[in-house]
Every structure is written in C-alpha cells, then in structure tokens.
C-alpha cells in the first residue's frame, strides 16, 4: 500500500511529502506536550494553591494553538498531495492501460482496471488528510506521550512504553484476524455466489430439467454447505472483534492500578496521581480514533490494490512482465532495448508505412512463432513458419480453438509472440513502436466494437483525412449504403455505446468500412461466426475482392463464400498448420479441409424435417 502510494506520488511532490511528515511529527510532539503539561496543571488544581495552574494553562493554550497552526498547514499540504495523487493516478492508470498486453484483459482484470479508473477519485483525494495523517499521529502520539512521561514517573512511563506496543499489536492483530475471517467467509460465499449466478443464468435449463426445487437443486446443496462454513467462520470473526477491546481495557486497568500502587506506596503525591490518570486516558485515546480508521484503511487498501494491479500489468514491448513494478507510472516506459521508434529506423518499409503511404503490399513472415497467454498456460500456437506473399489473400480455416484469431492478433501487433518473430517486409514487429506497428494493419474484428458517436465518426476512425469519394467507396464496398439509406440520420446516426444501437451485422459492416478506409498495407479480417446475416458475407467478399488498395490480406474464414475469395488456404488445427495450398489443391488432397468443405456444403442446404432422411 505504501509502495503504491509512493509510486503514485509525483517526484516533484517528494519535498512536500517530507515536509508533511516532519510537521506531523512536530504536531504530535506538541500534542504530547499538551498532555504532559496536564500533570502540573491538574496537580495544581488539586493542590492547596489552584491558582498555580494558570501558567500551566497558558502553556497548554500555547501548545494547543501552535498545534492548530501547524495542523492547518499539514492539512493544506495534505489536500495538495491528495489532488496531486488523484491527477497522477488517473493519468498513470490510463497511460498504462493503453500499453498493457491485450492478453491481460481477462474479465477479472478488466473489472479491476475499470474500478481503478472510475471508482478511486474521491478516495485518492482524501488519502493523506483523512487516512495517512490521522493514522500516523494515532500511532505516534501514545508512544510520544509514554516517552514524555519518563521524567515525570519512571515506572508509569515504563508500563506505558510496554503497554502501547501491545495495544498496537492487538489493534492490528484484531484487524488482521477480522480480515482473515472475512476472507474465509468470502471464499465460502463465492462458491455459493457462483451457483446463484448459475441458477439465474441457467434457469431455463434447470426448469426444463425440473431441478429448481431447493432440495433437488445444485444451488440448494451449495447453500447448505455455505451455512455450515459460515458457522465455523464465526469462531474466527468474534475473537477478532473483541481482541482490541479486551487489550485496551486491560491496559487501562494495569496503568491505573500502577498509579494507585505508586500513590499508596507514597512514590507520588495524590494530586500527581490524579493528573497521571488523566494523562493515561489521554495516552489511550488515540486508539479510539485508530479504531475509527479501520474501515477507511480497508477501502483505501482496496483502491490502491486495484491501481497497483493495473500498474503491474505486463505491457507490450517489455521483455519481463514484472520488471516495471518499482517505477512510478509517469516514468514507466517500454523496455528500452525493445523500443525503437519508427523515425529512428533506417530507411525501411516500416518508416514509409508509418507515414501512411501504402504504395505496395508487404510480405509477412512468421518464423518459429509460438504464443501462449501466460507463462503457465499451454501454447495456443507453436512452431508456426508462414510466409504471406505481397498482395495475396489467404484464408485461415480450422476448428474453433485452433489459434486462427491468434495469428491475426500477432500480425496486427495486438499480441506478441512468446517465441519467434513476426516480420513485415523483413522488419521485426518487435522493434517498431506501437504506433508504427498499428499503422501497418487494418483489422475487422470478430466482435467489432464501435465508439459512442456517429456512424461517420466510427468509419473515419480508420483514416480521419480520407476524401469524401473514398468514404463513399468504402461504404459501398462494405454494403453500408443499404444501412445508410435506411437508418434515420444516415451518416450522422448515433451508434450508441459500444455500437448497441445497431444490430450485430450492421456493426460488422461499419467495422469493415472502417478497416477498408484505413490506408494500411495489411488487411486482417476475422469473420463473424454468426451465419444469419448473408449481407455480411457479401460485404466481406466484396471487401476482399473489389477493394483497389494494394494490400496483403489475411482472413479467418468460416464460410465457403469468403473462402472462395482466397488465393490460398491454411488449415489450422491445435495451433499448427495441417494443410496449406490453393482450394483446389486441398480439395484434391481429400484431407481435413476437403472434409470441412463437404460438411459446409451439406449444411448450407439443410432443412428441418420431422423425419430426416439422414
């Protein structure tokens, strides 16, 4: 938590941090002074001459006023630091997100990242003022008071010096036990949660299977199990909640007892004893405020943990995923050796392409390429040696999970090979920076994502400077003209968040237009699996055949229509190339592809009958 906090704090605020810390210590000393002054003050009040208390009261007033002044400064600095933290965290997280490896974006990580951006602002602003400052003084104050007691009453100071660490231990120990109990409870709950979500998600199936009655259902079993576990967790929860209470009451008892003993034995006078009891209570008081902070500690730790998770995520272009953890986000850079800006390249294709010219289509070469999502998981593709000749159209075919889309991601530079190299006209993609890499490719994603905005803005994202003529051309090629004629507002129609105002097929066609408009020398198309939209099929076929831009095209294909447009077919299974050749060659070879071809052919003529002939 501290580590993340420090990493987020901009370098130019380090001085302010130091000042803040120093002033907090001064403030604590002043408060301790104010407490210790109580000894002569209270003693005087209980003594024969109460008026002797006046000078001490003056001193107390002075210490308190000085404390106010310093604390006002502390809180101003603290707020300042909070805003600096907010700014740096929000930007740090956003910057980092744009460079994180795509494979990192699992649903869980995506949810965390979302939290780290959207739900942390107010917490970050208050982190110094409402958490760090009170936490620090809450811990330091009792210790300082105990030390200040030494010249007044040695034995009592000793008791306090022993007692305070024990109390702190009890406080943090109790919180730890509580957290542990909560974690155990959360674990037992999560099994149930999964079943509950399943119960809701699969209600149709469960009902059709008559498995919804609690006695017969899976969720009912999970519920009974959770109940048993919850009772066991109780034995953990309650001690955590009462531990600190016991400790602080004991401390009060021991310290007051010691004072009484010292008085009875005549070591200290009665007025002194009373004054010391007052001081003891003041010494224990900060713990009350610490107890009040535990909820804030909990939530802030969560906030910082989310941010940490994002900041620690592996970025594109860094060799080792975790080597950036000690760097502040503002300073996090891709690995220096792996980083080479397009401008720094000698005259290569990469340079000219980075500037948007697409005079000729490039050759794409994969050598010994392997990819896995993380070091522990199995290879998705392995040992790929592929050569895509300039200007050709290649269809990649194969069963689901065979790694087809992965090849496209690797060429698009969205994923990086875990072994081997991807070369475009001889230039390794790994030496290009992200911008240069992405200039090379236009991609039609399988699940196209559109941004909230107009149709036009979404298509123009491919090439903001495109001419009207060109925009009209791609709209026609992508079969978007039909949609434009139908939809109210035409080009200016809003597509909604994520494109939800359009149907899946319409989104697909917008995304085809977007990719065609981009003057990239490589076009990668991941065909949608849904077969209901024939218009899309046509759009993909025309996009691949009628587009005049010289490009090297690679298509992940599911349908015969689009496969037919390809010069060459690669049949992929379990991450390896099984067959490779023209359609005719592969059909003649009568292997996996030929089988696939026949099945597809049969499927397209399928009819539902009550008494199938097959």
């Amino acid at each position: 938590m501290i580590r993340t906090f420090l990493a987020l704090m901009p370098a130019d605020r380090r001085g302010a941090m130091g000042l803040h810390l120093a002033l907090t210590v001064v403030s604590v000393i002043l408060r301790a002074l104010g407490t210790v002054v109580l000894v002569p003050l209270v003693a005087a009040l209980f003594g024969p001459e109460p008026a002797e208390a006046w000078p001490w009261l003056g001193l107390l007033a002075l210490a308190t006023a000085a404390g106010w002044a310093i604390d006002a400064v502390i809180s101003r600095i603290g707020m300042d630091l909070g805003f600096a933290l907010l700014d740096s965290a929000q930007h740090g997280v956003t910057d980092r997100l744009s460079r994180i490896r795509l494979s990192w974006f699992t649903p869980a990580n995506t949810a965390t990242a979302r939290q780290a951006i959207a739900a942390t602002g107010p917490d970050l602003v208050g982190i110094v003022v409402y958490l760090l400052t009170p936490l620090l003084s809450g811990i330091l104050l009792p210790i300082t008071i105990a030390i200040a007691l030494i010249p007044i009453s040695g034995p009592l100071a000793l008791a306090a010096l022993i007692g305070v660490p024990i109390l702190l231990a009890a406080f943090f120990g109790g919180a730890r036990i509580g957290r542990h109990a909560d974690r155990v409870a959360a674990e037992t709950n999560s099994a149930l949660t999964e079943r509950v979500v399943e119960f809701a998600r699969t209600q149709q199936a469960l009902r059709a299977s008559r498995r919804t009655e609690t006695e017969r259902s899976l969720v009912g079993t999970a519920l009974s199990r959770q109940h048993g576990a919850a009772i066991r967790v109780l034995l953990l929860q309650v001690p955590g909640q009462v531990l600190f209470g016991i400790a602080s009451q004991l401390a009060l008892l021991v310290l007051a007892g010691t004072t009484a003993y010292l008085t009875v034995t005549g070591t200290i006078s009665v007025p002194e004893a009373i004054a010391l009891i007052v001081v003891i209570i003041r010494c224990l008081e900060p713990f009350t405020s610490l107890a009040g902070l535990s909820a804030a500690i909990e939530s802030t730790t969560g906030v910082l943990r989310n941010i940490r998770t994002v900041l620690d995520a592996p970025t594109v272009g860094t060799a080792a995923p975790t080597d950036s953890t000690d760097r502040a986000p503002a300073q996090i850079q891709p690995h220096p050796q792996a980083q080479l800006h397009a401008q720094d390249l000698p005259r290569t294709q990469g340079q000219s392409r980075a500037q948007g010219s697409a005079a000729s289509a490039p050759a794409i070469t994969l050598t010994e390429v392997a990819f896995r999502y993380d070091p522990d998981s199995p290879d998705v593709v392995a040992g790929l040696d592929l050569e895509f000749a300039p200007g050709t159209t290649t269809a990649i075919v194969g069963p689901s999970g065979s790694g087809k889309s992965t090849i496209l991601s690797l060429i698009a530079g969205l994923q990086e090979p875990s072994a081997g190299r991807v070369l475009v006209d001889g230039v390794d993609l790994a030496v290009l920076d992200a911008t240069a890499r992405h200039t090379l490719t236009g991609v039609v994603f399988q699940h196209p994502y559109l941004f909230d905005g107009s149709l036009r803005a979404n298509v123009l994202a491919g090439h903001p400077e495109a001419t009207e003529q060109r925009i009209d051309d791609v709209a026609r090629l992508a079969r978007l003209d039909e949609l434009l004629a139908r939809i109210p507002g035409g080009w200016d129609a809003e597509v909604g968040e994520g494109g939800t105002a359009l149907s899946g097929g319409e989104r697909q066609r917008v995304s085809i237009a977007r990719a065609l408009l981009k003057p990239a020398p490589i076009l990668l198309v991941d065909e949608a699996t849904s077969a209901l939209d024939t218009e899309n099929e046509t759009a993909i076929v025309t996009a691949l055949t009628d587009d005049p831009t010289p490009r090297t095209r690679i298509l992940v294909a599911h349908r015969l229509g689009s496969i037919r447009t390809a010069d060459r077919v690669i049949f992929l299974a379990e991450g390896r190339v099984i067959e490779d050749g023209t359609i005719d060659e592969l059909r003649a070879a009568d292997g996996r592809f030929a089988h696939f071809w026949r099945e597809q052919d049969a499927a397209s003529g399928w009819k539902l009958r009550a008494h199938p002939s097959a």
Partner: protein
Amino acid sequence: MAKRGFNGAIMSAFGLRDHEAEVIDVEHLAPNFVRVRMTSPTVFTDAEVGPTAWLRFWFPDPDDPDFEHQRGYTITEADPEAGTFAVDFVLHEPAGPASAWAESVTPGTRVEVASMGSTVFTLPDELPAGYLLIGDSASIPAINSILEATPADLPVEVYLEEHEPSDRLIPLSRHPRMNLHWVPRRGDSSLAAAIESRDWSDWRVWTALESGSLKAIRARLKDDFGFPKSEITARAYWYEGRAFGKMRGEKKDDTPAEAAAESTSGAEPSPASANASPTSPNAETPAAPKGSWRANAGGRLIAPLKATLWIAGILQAIVTLVELAPYVLLVELSRQLLTGADSATLWATGIWAVVLMGSGVVLSAALLFWLHFVDARFERDLRRRLLTTMARLPLGWFVDRGSGRIKQLVQDDTLALHYLVTHAVSDAVQAVVAPVAVLIYLFVVDWRIALALLVPVLVYIVTMYIMIIQSGTKPKQALTWAEQMNVEAGSYLAGQPVIRVFGGASASRFRSRIDEYVRFLTDWQRPFTTSKTVMDLVNRPATYLLIITALGTWLTVSGSIDPIDLLPFLFLGTTFGARLLGIGYGLSGLSTGLLAARRIQNTLDEERLEVVERHRAQVDEKDTAASARDASRDSHPAPGLVEFDDVGFAYRPGVPVIDGVSLRLEPGTVTALVGPSGSGKSTLAALLARFHDVTEGAVRIGGRDIRTLPGDELYTQVGFVFQDIQLVQGTVAENIALAVPDASEDAVIDAARQAQIHDRILRLPDGYDTVIGTEAALSGGERQRLAIARAILADTPILVLDEATAFADPESEHLVQQALGRLATGRTVLVIAHRLHTITDVDRIVVLDHGRVAESGTHDDLIAAGGRYRRLWDAREITSATAPRTQGATR
C-alpha cells in the same frame, strides 16, 4: 445594496451567489397569473434544472424600496444553454413583494436571483402504483413539471385547492391518466376531507400547500390511509393570514420554498375544467382501507427478527454503559485517593473494575456470537425462500434482470441484511447510547462545562452545513460523474483492440474526459480545504481539553467547583464531540440494511406462476364449449397435442404482443413460426414453455391448460432448445443427465451419440467425467450438441426450438443440424424460423404479423397463395440480413 435582513445575512454566510436576471417577456396566462421570462447568463452555473426546481429571487419591498425580500419560485421554462428561464406568479391583493413586482414588471427590469436548496423531482427506480399530487394555484407550476415527468401509463390523481374561482383558469399540463379534482377551500381541513377514501397502496404523494391545509393533509395521508413517511414529499409554500408584504424578511422560514400566494378576492367565478369533480368537504367519508406499501416491505421481512433485534439492542445498551463504567470508577478511585482511603477500599474499587470490564467483554462477545448465529440461520432460510420463489417466477423475469441483478439480490442484499442483524443495530444503539449517557453524566456533574463542550460541536455542524449548501448540486454531479466514468472506462477497456489499431481520436477523448473528471473533483473539493481543516481542528480532543482545563481552572480558582468534578470531563469530555457526531454515522448502517430488506421482500412478493386448480382455469375461459371439449378430451388425452386457444399476451397492459392466436399442433408434426422480428414468434414459442403466462385465452397440451400443470409435470412434456445454451458447472455426464439425474450410463451415451457429440466427449481429458468449464472449454457447436443430447435424454413429447441454433457455430454446423434433426424426430415441434429455406419441408408454416396469425399452410400452399409468405420468400436475402439482433429467446 439593499437591506436584506437576517435572511440575507444567512444566505451570504452560506456563500450564496447572486446572479442578475433581466426580464425579457411578461405573459398573462390567466387572470392573476403571469409568466415572467428572464435571462441570466450565469445563473445556471449554480442552478439545477428539472421538475420542481426553483430559484430564490430578491424582490423589493413595495413600501420601502431599500429593503428586499427573498421568495422562491418554481422554474417553469428553462434553457440552460441560452441562460433563459421563466417563473409563474399568482397575483393577489394585498400584494406581497413578489406579487407587486410581478404585477408591474416590464421587460428590461432587473432582479437578483440565486439558487440554493432547490430540489428536483425524480422518478424512483421502482415506479409507484401512481402519483397523488396535491396543491393549489401557487404549486401548479411545480405540479405541471411533475406531470410532464411522469410516465404516460402511470395513473395520477391531482387535487387542487381552489382559493379563487379564477384559479381554475390557470393552465395545467396534460397527462393521459390524470384525474383532476378542484376543491374549494372552506378551511384547513376541507381539502384533506376531499381526498378520496380508497386503497392507496404503493402510491406516492407530492404536495405543496398553504401551511394549515398541509397539516390536515399530512394527518389524512398518514393516519387515514397509512402512507409511509418515505412516500410523501410535502412542503408548506405559504401561510394563510400572514401577509408576506408586511414581513420585513426577518423571518427565516423553515420551509424550503415559499411561493407567495395570498388568498384574496379577485376574478369572477368561471366554469371548471372538464373533469373537475367538486367534492363536498362535509360529506361523510367512509373509513379508508389502509394500504400496504412496498416501501414498508423491508419491515415485513425482518419482522421475525424483531424480538431478537430488540433484545440485542437492550443488551448492547447495557454493554455500552458497562464499557463507560471504568471511567466512573476512575473518578471514584481519584476521590478515594484524595480522601486517603485505605487499601481495602482501593482493592474493592479495583475488583469492581475487573468485574465490570470482564462482564462487559463477556457480554459483548456473547452478544456477537448469538447474533451471528441467529443471522446465519436467518440468512440461509431467506436465501432458500428467495431461490424457491425465483423458481416459480416467470422465466421472463430472469431475462429482464440478468444474473448480475439476481446475484445482488441473493448474495449482496442478504449480506447487507447480515450486517443489519449482526452489526447495524448494535452499532446504532452504541452510537446513540454512549454519547447520550456521557452527555447526561457530564451535565449532571457540571452543566456549565458541559454546555461549553457543545460549542465546538455547533461550530462543526454549522461549518458542515455551509459546506453542504455550497456544494449544491455537486454531490449529485459527482455520482453522475462516477457512473459516467464507469461507463466510459468500460468502453475504453472493451475498445482496447480497436483503439490500438485505429487509435487516435477515441483514446484522446477518454483522456480529456479523465482530465475533466479530475478538474471537477478538484474544483469541488479544493475550496473546502479551509472548512474541512476548521471542522477537524475544532473537534479534536486537544480543543476540548483546552476548553475543559481553561474553564476548570477558572471555576476552581474562583472556588465554584470541586476539582474532583473536573475529572469526568477530563476522562470523557475530550472525545465527547467525536462521539456525538458519530451518531449519524452509526445510524447509516440501518438504512442500507432496510433498503436491502425491501428489495428482497419485493422479490418475494413478485407474482409467481401459480399452478391453478383445474376447474378455475376452466372458469376463466370465455367459451364454455371449450371446457366441455376439454373435459371430454381429458378422458382421451393425446400426449403431444398442443393447442393455442385464442391466446393473447402483453408485457404491459394495453400493448399486446400476441393477440388472438389460435393454433393446433398435431402430435408428431413440425410447425414453423415465421415473421419479421417483433412479430411475436419468439414470444409465442415462449408461452408454450411457460416463460410467461398468457393474458388471454389458454395454452393446452394433451388437452390440459398448462397453468394447471405443476412445473414438474409441464416440463416432462415440453422441452426446449434455444440459442442461449445453458450448461451448469459439473461433468459432461451430469449436464446431459440434468433432467434425469439417475439415468444409466448407457442412456447418457446413447443420447450423446444421437446428438453427434459422443466422439468429441471421448476426446476430452476425462471423457464423460470431464468438468465443463474448468477442465475443458467447449466450442459453441459442442455446447449446443450437449444441450441437444440433454433434450434427447429428457425425451419430452413436445419441443420448442429456435432454428438459429443450427447456425450459431459454423465450425460444427453440420453436426448440430444432424443432432437437431434427430431431436425433432417423433415429437411435436414448434420452431422459431429465421432462414426460410430450412423450413420448406415442415408440416406447417405459420406466418405471424404484429402478434396475429397472418397466414398458415405448407410451403407450397403459401407460395401458391402469393401472400405475405410469398413476399417474405421472394425477399428472403434481405430479411435474413436483418435477422434477429439478439439471441433472446423470449422477445
């Protein structure tokens, strides 16, 4: 600067900013009713616009132009972009400052205006059964804005108090389901008496009236009808008999808005608006039935725990007092030391302390244990009840909500209840009892010092209040920002691949949004640095200590206090402020828990799909002959026969999705439903699977109304396979045998074979014992075939099918098709068809249009008929392009 009295002083203390507005137009909408349009370029930087939002105006005193009065008026028109707005004035005699100003105002006149404390009417997430709006001429502008914000299908009852016959000429907004009642005022209670005696269950009230009438209305609503407080929004807008014009603004009004509208004579009587119903205020009204409100549902849910919570509260109060006891004992100890007590007395005190502390600890631990234990049982039973209820809700309920909402209900809300039971009540009791006990103790010991201790608390509260006022709409905006950032972050994350490839604009847009958000938070919070510091400093122990010692020294020196009486203050007084201010925080847990309780109880109260007694279902039918047929068929049941008998269905009353559909599916035949999306084909199919209950007619299988069949019996007869494949966590075999858990291994394997999935299963790591999801990821087509295997094993005579299933996965389309063909064999099949060429061979095609059967027959018949089907067939390339947008099987 005009004098603005105490009111003005308060306003400026709150940091209220005045904006200058210039009158641009004055329109007389009715006798004694004018609309004044104004422009102020800056006012909307402060003011929020929305129904019932209002502004504060400073009007000059008619007699003394040096003096200004503040009056609140509802915004009736607003264009924040242009900075223009309008407010309506009721003119009356004798005129108050506002009325006098409005009467003589001309374009070009300037007036100062400010926004503070205005509230905007918002519809709750859960709509009430209706809105009861009660007002008079002064609140008509606000009522109009509410009427415009209220959904057209929500009933609205409007009661207006008539002070002047001309009041009826004031224009009212229209609402299709509004009932308007004008009630001439005959005293404070005449309007209240006119409110119809009826069951107002789940209605909400908005009312703004003259203070006396309002008091009577409140009593009527609460005592006679049982309206819960949470369902009433009430304001006093003005006071009868107090001429505001004579008030010099010294009165700080405790009502949020005060639209001046004194009642006096004026215009002539005029005919009432069309549907006004003059109600006699003196009429004997029968006792109104007390309604029940969903808002109170939470209380019902935790009713069984009431006794437990009471006991817990009392025990907690005792524990809290016991925990304070050591401080009292310390005072006692000090006293004993001072009086030189012997060691036996000291020991006795020590033992007392140990006993008290020990029993406090034991008691609180026991209390915690007991509550947790009670709660664990309650929680389990509650979840069980919830799940059981859900199992009987229409399947459409789940489609509407999604698993996230349901998880919140079963998991998060029961957890919030857990907090309510185990902690919230104890926390609240502790938060209240401790400061109150300390307060009483300290006041008893010495009221002077105790009183002084309240000063910092007061400073704290005032500072906080000023901050809240200055924040204005910012907290609300902050919530909106947080929501927006959540959406935008989600979109930024989901769009990462696209952003990286197509980059540029979309990424920078998000960045600038982040900047704006950071700027918003900074602009909002930074000015409060000083206030927050003041709040912190004034309320810390050191401050209290200084007050106590200073006063204590003075009082001791002057001899008016025994120093021993200072000790309670030194022991307990320093944290007094923190304790007192903790009350609010301690109570907040209660409301969270009660809100959760309310959601849960409302789910438990949802209308379930009940199994109707057979004779009742028959009585429901219009056609007695049908029930006669029914009875006769009962003796010769034909399993697999499906009849839709004049079926109608509507998600919302008055908007039928299915309308008068009668169909007979002969056993063993295949019927295809065809039609453009929105034609109701999915809904009709869903009715057969009883996702919803028909609102008209009946669906019968084997001659029996499906509503008379218990769920278990229904689903032994009807099975369905939709695009959305639902597998549960478990092994492949468990999934196939979901409906027949005790099926033999051979039966499972046979079903898998027929569904073309057997070979694939054998290739899984553990064959049929492979756990789906964790050990093996199945492709879409494989999951579909698994679901088909499940349906084959369940072996229902009737099957509802979505043809799109066959095309959802191109990789194994062929196998899925074969499996589907096998599944359809020998059953009565109702298929939702998207691709016409796949259903050309079925026994019958039914073309639906707007929920009605347009045509039906075989493919050849329909082609020959040249009707709607023929047109669909000829245009099928185009229709298939606009095929279903979602795979939702029910709509």
